[in-house]
């Protein structure tokens, strides 16, 4: 896939001496949804601020659609829309005026029909004449999205889009994000809600302490790092694990009432059938079984703790 953003060796040390990013390399593919995961203070916002031109980088280069984001800033910034993390809005303004302002600021002539379409898509049309100060937090976030889309960008950055947003609105926003992706917009979102990345993203990048630890296709990542677990509920509790079964890597749990078999999705040491056969040979009966798969959250915690 062609990359629309290419980040090479980007680092940032703030005037305060804080090093927020350490030589980050990242290619963002055209048309994908990339989720950047990381704990607070990991450098996610700094990275996207550098791409968007809000923060000067200390070293490295950023190419957007082949153009340098400093020397060709007029071209690259027109391609990008940014939804900031905080609700930075002029509260005395009306929704319609602020969205029109954004479009003009990006050097685009009026196109009220387009702005109407966006506001309707974001369920903001009824509020177009409302002052921003009268809107709820969720509505304000939608206004920020509308502002970011006002100049028809091909790339959209969403910095923590669901921070402080209720479940319903979050679902609503994900629907909007998917609809945008379907129109060909490349979307980069930062989040520390793992389920957001799991639900939305095509690829996942993990940032910790200013370093990009990995970037992977979401499914590949979960396959590669995901653990599966088979739990068998025994009819009779076992005091001790028979020696034969220990060789299979089985463990006793719940005071001997359960047998647990943990395995990597790809490289299971023994097939499930082998394990079950061994159980039957040892005459251990079970009443029920369940399997669980590790979530991105587990994977993420595993990576960040390293």
């Amino acid at each position, binding site marked *: 896939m062609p990359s629309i953003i290419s980040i090479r060796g980007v680092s940032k040390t*703030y*005037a305060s001496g804080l090093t927020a990013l350490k030589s980050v390399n990242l290619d963002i593919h055209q048309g994908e949804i990339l989720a950047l995961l990381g704990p607070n203070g990991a450098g996610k916002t700094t990275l996207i601020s550098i791409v*968007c*031109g*809000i*923060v*000067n980088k200390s070293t490295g280069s950023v190419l957007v659609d082949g153009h340098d984001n400093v020397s060709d*800033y*007029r*071209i690259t*910034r*027109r391609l*990008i829309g*940014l939804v*900031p993390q*905080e609700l*930075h*809005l*002029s509260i*005395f303004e009306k929704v319609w005026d602020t969205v029109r*302002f*954004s479009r*003009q*600021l*990006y*050097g*685009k*002539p009026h196109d009220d029909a387009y702005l109407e379409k966006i506001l309707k898509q974001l369920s903001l049309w009824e509020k177009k004449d409302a002052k921003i100060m009268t809107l709820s937090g969720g509505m304000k976030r939608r206004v920020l999205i509308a*502002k970011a889309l006002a100049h028809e960008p091909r790339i959209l950055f969403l910095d923590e889009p669901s921070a402080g947003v209720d479940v319903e609105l979050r679902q609503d926003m994900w629907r909007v994000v998917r609809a945008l992706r379907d129109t060909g917009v490349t979307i980069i979102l930062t989040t520390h809600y793992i389920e957001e990345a799991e639900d939305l993203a095509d690829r996942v990048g993990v940032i910790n302490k200013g370093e990009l630890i990995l970037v992977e296709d979401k499914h590949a990542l979960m396959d590669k790092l995901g653990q599966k677990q088979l739990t068998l509920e025994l009819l009779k509790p076992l005091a001790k694990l028979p020696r034969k079964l220990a060789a299979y890597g089985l463990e006793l749990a719940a005071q001997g009432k359960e047998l647990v078999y943990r395995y990597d999705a790809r490289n299971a040491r023994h097939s499930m059938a082998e394990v079950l056969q061994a159980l039957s040979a040892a005459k251990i009966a079970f009443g029920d079984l369940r399997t669980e798969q590790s979530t991105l959250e587990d994977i993420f915690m595993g990576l960040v703790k390293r």
Partner: protein
Amino acid sequence: MNWYGIWAIYRYEMARFFRTLGQSLVSPVISTVLYFVVFGAAIGSRIQDVSGVSYGAFIVPGLIMLSLLTQSISNASFGIYFPRFSGTIYEYLAAPVSALEMVLGFVGAAATKSIFIGLVILATSAFFVPFHVAHPLWMALFLLLTAITFSLFGFIIGLWADGFEKLQIIPLLIMTPLTFLGGSFYPISILPPFWHTVSLFNPVVYLVSGFRWSFNEVADVHVGVSLAMTLFFLGLCLAIVQWMFNTGYRLKN
């Protein structure tokens, strides 16, 4: 050039002005009226003519300059500081708007507002003292250059300030003494020699002198010197703004 962008910034800033038009105009007009009552009528009637000009008419250009300077600084500094304070600055920084375009939008709007106020004060003055403008074009030129220069200066303060206190401190600590010692109310020639020399280091002297010359051809320094000093200060402010944007000072670091 991103003309739409400049226009968007300019219009947004002007909209803020018109939203609070009453407040924006009332305070400078009231203070000017007070100056005329105190200096023009009460004290002025006991003061001799200055170079053949009545004292009331003599202080008109000075009073307009006084408002023009303070209004330019406060409009421009607040205009750029407030988005920094509220966080909405992100949008200006992420937009394809150059430093020059941002300056044109913000400073252009601040200068427009202060010129507007300057003209209102000029009109107000006409109710109190008869005066006449000998060189209207020069007057317009000094009005424009001063408004732009001090709006730029205000813009610099708005970029530099990291709190509302700092936003106030420069106008209070530096501009008030400079304007009062800048010959708004008296010709600097009446000062003792030492203070006369000190005054020549005050840029406001040149602005007031040039502006006053355009009214009644009374000046502390030659009008050419006034113009040159005004342009010099304008260039200095432009250079500082350019440096701030190039280095990302207080904006992108």
